[in-house]
């Protein structure tokens, strides 16, 4: 980008996320204020074609489901206390197969915790969010450019898979103002969306020969639409545990596993014996740590996962190639490490963790150099 075209501004991730959502075709925002997601609510209220303040987060999610059922592409942003209220309704939208985007801005827990302190503490929660263990697509923002790049991907995934999608981020990512060149932002194309156009009879959950059933809004004048949050057959009729209904439920897993885009960046260096893995806000510290190590002549590689769930196999495959792995994340347990290795994290996998503060580049560099 040459100097004359550059457009430097001081900007935060919240503004980029709201703008990116609208450019990608999201048309309804339903919000309930909560720190540190309120800035997204503020910008969304200015920008979305329809923006509705809800009286609580359960209502927010239910309105979103209703709007989605009517053909809208709704978005909300919240933080753990509000997200907790949404969980049953997200399960409902998952079962009804309604596209929507929930942006989860992490803050320090447990419970109300510290509203104005960042954290990366909600990954394990997201991993078990849907009753039965069915996977929900979760993407995670690693820098300001991701605030622009990922919302359209998340929305397209929501539409393509007919599912709620979670975009994970955290306080320091969406509230910090940073110098940024707007000229670096690529054009955003609206999500591609098609509705069922067949002759009928339309069965809401009949995937034909694919994994994802074609969508049709309720209220349309052509075909009856039946949406159902309870166990149901291909036509949305409530069932106990019929074969057809169980096949439908299994399909929910199959479609997410098969069709969630795998997004990550892998910066490998020749001769590196250590792979640093970091996501969300800690990705920035990891980038600085890796740059500092390389400047000192220490070869090191860096993996920044952006698709967190379902967990792509390529992460473990990549780690397998390294004698040492350092996973850095701002929580007490090492949640990504736990997700990858369970309670038996192998000795060559080192965890760098912290709560109540951002992880520093020098902590990561030290662990690599150890």
């Amino acid at each position, binding site marked *: 980008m040459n100097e004359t075209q*550059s457009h*430097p*501004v*001081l*900007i935060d991730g919240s503004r980029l996320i*709201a703008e990116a959502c*609208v450019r990608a075709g999201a*048309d*309804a925002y*339903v919000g309930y204020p909560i*720190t540190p997601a309120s800035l997204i609510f503020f910008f969304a209220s200015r*920008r*979305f*074609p*329809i923006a*509705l303040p809800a009286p*609580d987060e*359960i*209502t927010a999610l*239910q*309105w*979103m*489901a*209703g*709007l989605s*059922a*009517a*053909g*809208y592409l709704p978005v909300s942003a919240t933080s753990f206390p509000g997200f907790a209220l949404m969980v*049953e309704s997200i399960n*409902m939208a998952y079962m*009804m197969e309604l596209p929507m985007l929930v942006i989860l801005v992490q803050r320090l827990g447990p419970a109300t915790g510290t509203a*104005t302190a960042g954290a990366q503490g909600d990954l394990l929660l997201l991993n078990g969010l849907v009753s039965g263990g069915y996977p929900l697509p979760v993407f995670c923002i690693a820098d300001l450019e991701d605030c622009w790049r990922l919302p359209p991907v998340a929305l397209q995934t929501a539409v393509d898979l007919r599912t709620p999608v979670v975009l994970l981020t955290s306080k*320091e990512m969406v509230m*910090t*103002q*940073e*110098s940024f060149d*707007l000229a670096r*932002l690529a054009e955003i194309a609206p999500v591609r969306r098609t509705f069922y156009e067949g002759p009928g009879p339309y069965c809401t959950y009949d995937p034909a020969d694919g994994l994802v059933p074609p969508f049709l809004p*309720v*209220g*349309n*004048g*052509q075909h*009856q639409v*039946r*949406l159902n*949050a309870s166990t149901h057959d291909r036509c949305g*009729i*409530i069932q106990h545990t019929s074969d057809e209904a169980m096949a439908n439920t299994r399909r929910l897993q199959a479609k997410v596993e098969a069709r969630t885009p795998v997004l990550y960046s892998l910066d490998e260096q020749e001769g590196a014996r250590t792979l640093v893995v970091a996501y969300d806000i800690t*990705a*920035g*510290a990891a*980038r*600085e740590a890796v740059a500092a190590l390389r400047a000192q002549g220490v070869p090191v590689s860096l993996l920044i996962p952006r698709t967190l769930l379902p967990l792509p196999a390529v992460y473990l495959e990549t780690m397998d190639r390294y004698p040492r792995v350092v996973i850095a994340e701002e929580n007490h347990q090492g949640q990504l490490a736990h997700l990858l290795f369970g309670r038996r994290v192998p000795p060559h996998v080192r965890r760098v963790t912290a709560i109540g*503060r*951002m992880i*520093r*580049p020098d902590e990561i560099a030290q662990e690599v150099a150890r």
Partner: protein
Amino acid sequence: MSGFLVKPELPYCKGCGHHLIVRNTVKALEALGASPLDVVLVTDIGCHGIVDGNFATHTVHGLHGRSVALAAGIAMGLPPEKKVIVYIGDGGATIGLQHILEAARMNVDLTVVVHNNMLYGMTGGQPSGLTPTGFRTVLTPQGYPLPHHDLPRLVRDAGAPYAARVVGLGDFSDVLRQALEVEGFALVEVLEICVSYGVKMNPDLRLKELAQETGYEPGVWTGARPAFRPSRRETASLLEMPAVPRQYSSPLEGRMALILAGSAGEGVQQAAELLAQAAMMAGLHATKKGSYPVTVGVGFSTAEIVLSRDPIFYHGVPQPDAVVVTSADGLANQRERIRRMTGGVLWLDASLPRPETGAEVRVADFRGRAGARNAALYALLTVLRETGVVPPEAFLEAVRESPIGKHVDLSGW
């Protein structure tokens, strides 16, 4: 068979009042001349909820108690000629009372039909918020001790233009038709007895006298209010931001992390933002974040600013190079960090006691020179004058160009 039903035999116990609600709904819709695909039936959890398979309308089967909120979302997304109906029980109305009141307050265009059989049928006969005093349930065999909610009254108070209560006997389709004709929120509470639990526990109760015996008053209450329906609007891009001009330069080679700590209402966050912009005008990268107590209008206000020659990926400030304190609130908030400083510079307002620190301390009269409101701005200007890390003129220009520019008298600074 009506065009509204795909199966005439309903899934309810013999004698259950739910049958009549379905028949009267169908009759009301036929009287309106609606077509099945103009209707969205949203059901809740409860015996009534398994009826969607019988309907030829669009059907949505949601969560317990949330059907009114779900239906509100649907209604807000559909044109007025579509009819959105909610079937909910007294249990669902209890757990989802907030949704009912909110939809009534907003006057969302939907019709809520409450199947009030005064207990939870599906789960074995427990009392709900609509169980009347003296009514016997499986859990209260001596009679329920508390009064019931008065739903029509609650929704009227919340602003609903239509509310009714009927005994679920015979033909009450006219009331349902009226409710469906309202453009806005309408609620019809239908009193019935669950033959499986209600009758068993209250064998002497007669349906004809149900209203009197339970203290429920039948009636129709109406008003008029415009319905709420959001419409799509045109909005402007959030990225219509003026580019920060680059017309200065900075001698900074590496990185400088600065903390500005003062009091709420004294322009700390704005001053920090202007410093970040001034740094950009001088060709640096910059980040700024704020920290303040939940009561934003009182107490401390602290900003962290990182300035750097190279792009900043990590914007934390574990060890500041400079801390600038303009008030006692700011000092209290940063005291611990100041104590841990082993180098760098602490700029301290002359009014403040000298804290314990390993930093070089420079005292200046920020508040006296610029007043409390502009102390933060003046303090940063002082730092720039003493360090030259960003040209002071860049900062003054950023101030002048900002919304506060015309309120700050910079002469003599």
